[in-house]
């Protein structure tokens, strides 16, 4: 059935379509249906003369080759690895092609969500699971869900971009064969050229016009990885040089002729409108052009961003009160009372007899907590908008191009197709650029400034205040141990719903239980004979959304800390017990690898301690060992070892960087970050209140990638969830103190 999925992915992706003045290969739907239509390939429209597009990812004109990065670049390397996957197959070298981000189109639906959305744990490769994933894939195709997220950069595109490149290569060879009279089999490609047997070369760009007049070679197959020139080997990310030289333009760096600058003050009671305001002082301030009212706040238009920020700060606003509790303590109270049948999300898994199991041996009970946390990528929310009589153009870095169209259009009474979206390089996201705080606001402002391009930049404080946070959650876990064995684990949590919230704000609400609350809760691969995993969905709290690793960022901490407690109660070694209990052979290998890397030999003593945690999220199993020392100045994190199995390491240097960054993210926020509400607004409004990790706290992080998983997996998020529990488990090993709530600095000091 693994075969079936591979087949269906390809069939959905590749068809052919002839268009006037050019040719487009790669429409969606089956080949026959697509042959009569140009709908599938968004590159077919707007193609210049004597140009060719082979599929939604390749465009060749007589001047240049353009490769489309399908996903948004949020620092994870999309703008490099996705074009390189195409270039690998086309025999293009870096520097021989331009890169453009995909525009909104169902052609760019994300196949990588099939595994995450289907209701089976990742390690389940049974026919039933694969059938469900195939059905999910078909749903994704039909819905045209174009979204960057879920660590799907590689899983979504590993197959289709290499096939896209192979189709382009073979079709260019066919065009060269026609021109030269040489058999295709005698042609080869190298460095952007077709090479004839006599050594003469024809540049790909010189073949564009002819390639547009011949049928595409749709059965082209990507090469075996053993033949790769770039992929799988240490390679230079294409964006590194421009970023180091300060030449890369992020969304916030873009400028247009005649542009004015906007800044906003929005109701910090998220989702609520403005009642009244007094802008008399702001109107007199330097650089100010205009003060505008929008639905949930006010905007100042000025001649530069700082003037706009200063003036908007001087506006006194009266806000409608929050729909959620004004004070943080009441958020926790709501969660505490959500462990009731009427709030049941779903009982995700039940094995054995949980009640009988809990009565066997020694009972262990523990409550865990995880707070709201902010995303706060370093580039604040921004965007440029221009509204004319025809519609709106918007330049903004975002992970969901089609939803941007919907949100902007809805805000100002246009149709989504009237919104022209240009994706931008972004200074990070971590889930922030899946939300729309800046989109609807920018549309409203630009709509009141028709004909003038408006650049909106959120102040950092505004960005914090509007940031829709990571879910807040409480876990009440129970388990039992008997005769040096875990007999039962009953994992229950109550949480706000990140994915449900995001889908609703994207205009695609779902009534299903939030699957992200199962992540890290039900995909537990230990041999525990009596097991149950249940989620409860708290209502009426702060809107919540996806934050790097989403559900597993909280559940992974709860589950792997609690498993550690059970292991200790059973008198076992945390590493050996996990290895012994692990039911999936190649996941066990991940644990064995991290044990070997860290030379795990049990307790260290002398105030030092090691903790281990293992979490599979987004299909990628990751095991981490954290080593700490309890010093006079607090806990010092000395070293972290990480093993992750992604099936195939496509971009090894970036892989290591992503994993290290994920560990830093997971540790830093677990140590010292939370958002708390007071009077309906979060109290943390800059990095001094929400610091995460700085370089002085950063440990040495040793990384190893494994390639045993039958599928190619992502790595942007999966290194995050094990970091917090591995740290908490290490602190326990070093000090005997069990920390059950993030952030840890509420309970222990860090160096």
């Amino acid at each position, binding site marked *: 059935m693994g075969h079936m999925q591979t087949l269906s992915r390809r069939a959905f992706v590749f068809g052919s379509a002839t268009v006037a003045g050019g040719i487009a290969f790669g429409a969606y739907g089956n080949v026959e249906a697509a042959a009569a239509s140009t709908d599938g390939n968004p590159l077919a429209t707007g193609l210049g003369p004597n140009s060719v597009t082979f599929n939604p990812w390749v465009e060749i004109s007589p001047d240049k080759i353009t490769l489309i990065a399908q996903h948004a670049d949020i620092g994870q390397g999309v703008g490099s690895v996705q074009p390189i996957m195409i270039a690998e197959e086309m025999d293009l070298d870096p520097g021989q092609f331009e890169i453009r981000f995909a525009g909104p189109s169902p052609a760019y639906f994300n196949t990588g969500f099939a595994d995450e959305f289907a209701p089976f744990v990742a390690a389940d490769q049974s026919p039933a699971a694969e059938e469900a994933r195939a059905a999910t894939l078909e749903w994704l195709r039909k819905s045209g869900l174009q979204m960057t997220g879920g660590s799907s950069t590689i899983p979504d595109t590993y197959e289709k971009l290499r096939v896209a490149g192979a189709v382009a290569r073979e079709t260019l060879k066919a065009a060269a064969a026609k021109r030269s009279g040489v058999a295709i089999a005698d042609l080869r490609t190298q460095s952007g050229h077709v090479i004839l047997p006599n050594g003469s070369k024809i540049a790909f760009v010189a073949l564009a016009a002819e390639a547009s007049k011949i049928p595409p070679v749709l059965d082209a197959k990507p090469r075996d990885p053993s033949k790769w020139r770039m992929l799988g080997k240490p390679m230079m*990310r294409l964006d590194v040089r421009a970023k180091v030289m300060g030449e890369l333009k992020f969304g916030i760096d873009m400028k247009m002729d005649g542009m004015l600058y906007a800044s906003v003050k929005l109701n910090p009671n998220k989702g609520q409108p403005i009642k009244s305001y007094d802008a008399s002082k702001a109107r007199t301030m330097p650089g100010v052009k205009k003060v505008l009212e929008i639905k949930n706040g006010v905007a100042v238009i000025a001649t530069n961003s700082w003037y706009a920020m200063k003036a908007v700060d001087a506006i006194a606003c009266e806000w409608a009160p929050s729909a959620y509790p004004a004070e943080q303590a009441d958020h926790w109270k709501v969660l505490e009372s959500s462990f009731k049948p009427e709030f049941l999300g779903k009982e995700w898994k039940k094995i054995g007899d949980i009640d009988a199991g809990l009565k066997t041996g020694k009972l262990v009970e523990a409550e865990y907590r995880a707070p709201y946390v902010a995303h706060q990528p370093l580039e604040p929310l921004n965007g440029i908008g221009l509204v004319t009589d025809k519609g709106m153009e918007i330049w903004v870095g975002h992970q969901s191009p089609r939803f941007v169209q919907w949100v902007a259009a809805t805000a100002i009474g246009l149709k989504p197709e009237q919104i022209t979206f240009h994706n931008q390089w972004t200074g990070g996201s971590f889930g922030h650029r899946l939300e729309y705080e800046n989109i609807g606001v920018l549309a409203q402002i630009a709509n009141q400034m028709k004909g003038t391009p408006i650049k909106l930049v959120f102040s950092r404080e505004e960005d914090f205040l509007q940031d829709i946070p990571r879910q807040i959650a409480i876990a009440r876990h129970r388990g039992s141990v008997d005769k040096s064995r875990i007999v039962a684990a009953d994992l229950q949590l109550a949480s706000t719903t990140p994915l449900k919230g995001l889908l609703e704000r994207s205009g695609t609400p779902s009534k299903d239980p939030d699957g992200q609350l199962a992540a890290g809760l039900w995909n537990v691969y230990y041999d525990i004979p009596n097991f149950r995993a249940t989620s409860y969905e708290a209502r009426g709290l702060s809107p919540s959304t996806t934050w790097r690793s989403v559900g597993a960022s909280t559940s992974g901490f709860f589950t792997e800390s609690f498993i550690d407690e059970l292991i200790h109660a059973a008198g076992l070694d945390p590493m050996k017990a996990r290895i012994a209990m692990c039911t999936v052979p190649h996941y066990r290998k991940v644990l064995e690898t991290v044990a070997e890397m860290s030379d795990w030999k049990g307790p260290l003593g002398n105030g030092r301690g090691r903790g281990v945690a293992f979490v599979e999220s987004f299909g990628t199993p990751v095991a981490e060992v954290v080593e700490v020392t309890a010093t006079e100045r607090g806990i010092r994190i000395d070293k972290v070892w990480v093993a992750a199995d992604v099936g195939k390491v496509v971009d090894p240097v970036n892989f290591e960087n992503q994993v290290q960054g994920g560990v830093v993210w997971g540790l830093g926020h677990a140590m010292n970050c939370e958002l708390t509400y007071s009077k309906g607004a979060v109290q943390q409004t800059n990095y001094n209140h929400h610091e995460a990790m700085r*370089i002085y706290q950063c440990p040495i992080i040793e990384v190893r990638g494994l390639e045993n998983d039958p599928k190619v997996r992502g790595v942007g998020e999966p290194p995050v969830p094990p970091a917090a529990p591995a740290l908490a488990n290490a602190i326990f090993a070093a000090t005997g103190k069990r920390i059950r709530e993030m952030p840890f600095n509420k309970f222990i000091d860090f160096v």
Partner: protein
Amino acid sequence: MIELTVDGIKRQVDVVPEMPLLWVLRDELGITSAKYGCGVAQCGACTVHIDGLAVRSCQSHIGEVAGKSVVTLEGLDNRDQHPVLQAWIEHQVPQCGYCQTGQIMQAISLLGLIPRPTDEQIDQVMSGNLCRCGTYPRIRAAIHAAAAASKTAEK
């Protein structure tokens, strides 16, 4: 009109003297390698050199910078061959890259004061520069590499 020298070029700007240098660079002069991250000297993304020292341009009022010489990353001497930038490329430090211009300007300043810094010295000087992507291990490695390269070049 306020006069200053930016990247070796004399510039005049017509803004209020309280305006932070950062916004003069970005919005008035179109020099975008200095980034806005926090506005309160918490992140270091806006770091430039004034008279040779690393400063947070979000905290330097343009009125106080008048007559001084500002160097942004874009105006570094020998930028294409600069050992710190070369080390940053060699070690592929950036992920999103937004903080890196500030990190680099701070690192250059560090190496000007301490040519062969220890990890501890790196941590001390670089801790004001936030990286949300978590590239710290690579920043350390790149600084050591740049220090070694400069040492070699001197010989």
